[in-house]
């Protein structure tokens, strides 16, 4: 019976996730394909920049500027934006659309509804990142790159966990308030503030404070160079888990809208 909820959730998310995944995958394919020829030019451009600025620009990663931009800017921002919007409407969207009334009268508990929504969200993020990685892996196969497919996978997994963390935060705010617009603006605001603090604080010599930002745990360990950082992934997973627990507890207690 919960499987049916999950099926419905996946059916609901299918198109959005497929479009985003294919676009990111295609983008990743071309980005990696041209990175070889571009890297020389860009390396010359950035080689005299301070380390922190290089990190900010994204040119200090293996594969150079284009791959750097892909992993530190384009893909994570697209993924987090999707995660926030999808997470915010996962539970609260049913209330905005007034379908919660008939759904919650079925023989399923609120916890089951919420967990089905959370699983659907996680699986769609997994699908998006898998397509993104597939684009990278194809380009690597076709054109070769300085990066191994294992390193590309590591970078992708870090992004996936980042997406999961923000999706869970948005889901929790939506589950607690029943208002998707509140959830997306608050979670989106947190994501932007956290992104900026992770990018800017090191420039100001306040690198320690950047560790408060989820983005630090997605990008800070430089997974494209160093592979998976299990401690950092653990922080993101823990953040997501805490958000889901908060979501369940608050969603069970309150009055439903719609």
């Amino acid at each position, binding site marked *: 019976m919960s499987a049916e909820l999950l099926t419905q959730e996946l059916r609901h998310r299918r198109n959005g996730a497929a479009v985003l995944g294919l676009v990111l995958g295609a983008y990743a394919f071309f980005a990696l394909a041209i990175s070889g020829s571009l890297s020389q030019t860009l390396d010359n451009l950035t080689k005299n920049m301070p380390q922190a600025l290089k990190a900010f620009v994204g040119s200090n990663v293996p594969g150079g500027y284009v791959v750097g931009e892909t992993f530190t800017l384009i893909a994570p921002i697209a993924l987090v934006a999707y995660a926030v919007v999808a997470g915010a409407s996962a539970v609260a969207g049913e209330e905005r659309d007034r379908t919660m009334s008939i759904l919650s009268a079925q023989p399923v508990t609120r916890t089951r509804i919420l967990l089905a929504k959370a699983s659907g969200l996680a699986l769609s993020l997994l699908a998006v990142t898998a397509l993104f990685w597939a684009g990278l892996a194809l380009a690597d196969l076709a054109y070769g790159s300085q990066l191994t497919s294992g390193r590309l996978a590591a970078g992708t997994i870090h992004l996936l966990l980042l997406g999961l963390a923000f999706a869970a935060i948005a889901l929790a705010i939506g589950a607690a308030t029943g208002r998707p617009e509140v959830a997306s603006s608050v979670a989106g605001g947190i994501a932007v503030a956290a992104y900026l603090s992770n990018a800017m604080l090191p420039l100001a010599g306040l690198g320690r404070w950047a560790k408060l930002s989820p983005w630090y745990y997605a990008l800070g360990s430089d997974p494209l160079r160093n592979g998976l950082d299990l401690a950092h992934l653990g922080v993101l997973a823990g953040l997501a888990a805490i958000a889901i627990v908060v979501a369940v507890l608050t969603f069970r207690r309150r*009055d439903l809208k719609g």
Partner: protein
Amino acid sequence: MTEAAIHTSGLTKYFGELAAVDGIDLEVKTGEIFGFLGPNGAGKSTTIRLLLDQLRPTSGHGEVLGLDLRERSLEIHQQIGYLPGDLSLYPKLTGRQTIDFFARLRGGVDLDYVEELAQRLDADLSRKVGDYSSGNRQKIGLIQAFMHKPALLILDEPNSGLDPLVQQTFQEMLREVRADGRTVFLSSHTLSEVERVADRVGIIRHGRLVVVERVDELKRKAIRRLDFEYAEPVPEGVFAGVEGVRAADIHGVFAEVSYEGSVNAVLQAAMTHDVVNLHSRDADLEEIFLAYYRDPNDGDDPQGHTGRPAPSASKDGNHVR
């Protein structure tokens, strides 16, 4: 099953300062059709959503099918069918996909029965819900509520959007549910929708249950009307002081008389002049209904009906326009 289908005591729900539901003691018997009446905003839907554990009571408690509505809502949901007021469904699913979805959430239902319900209600299941008229959407909602033959049906404004023919079929279906020993809890803001099927009605106003009465009892007490047409204009005082008369509107040769109880005195008074035509109207529960929920403080009822006689009017209060 001997316990009441629905039992609440002191059920109360505040939204901020506003008491949407204010100390409702409700008892719906197993196997009856209970009409839950009140104007829009009186607290009908809030009461229902408390019963379904979608809202949490500020105070008071209740049982549905003998199960505590807070502690055992999952079991309650397994045994009830619910049609929300102002129904919304998933616009991208077809009617059939919608039914399939809810059927699977219930662990499967008898698909032949779904087919039968769809045919009886003349429901179109083939198109997407977003393309349906509100009537067809309502039919999907009804199939969804009926399809697992629940012990208790909770229907919030089920008639909205249904054409008269389908309303008739729907009422037959309700009677069949009752014949089956199952229970129906039916909310509405118009009495005519429930008076033909309900055994008892409860009237809610401003969150309070004003009265619970058998429908036939209400009908017995109901105000009836006689319209007379005279050969010549009659004086305004013709029905003044006549026993049982609530109001008499006289314009020239026409007289509209509302009365309760015996018709004899009314006829005797009427026959003092030359009657050429007489038209009788059925007992109108609407008037009782209005009388019950007319606010004595503001003298205005929320539905905007004015000028209707109230049973609480003074005995000799023949008001004449």
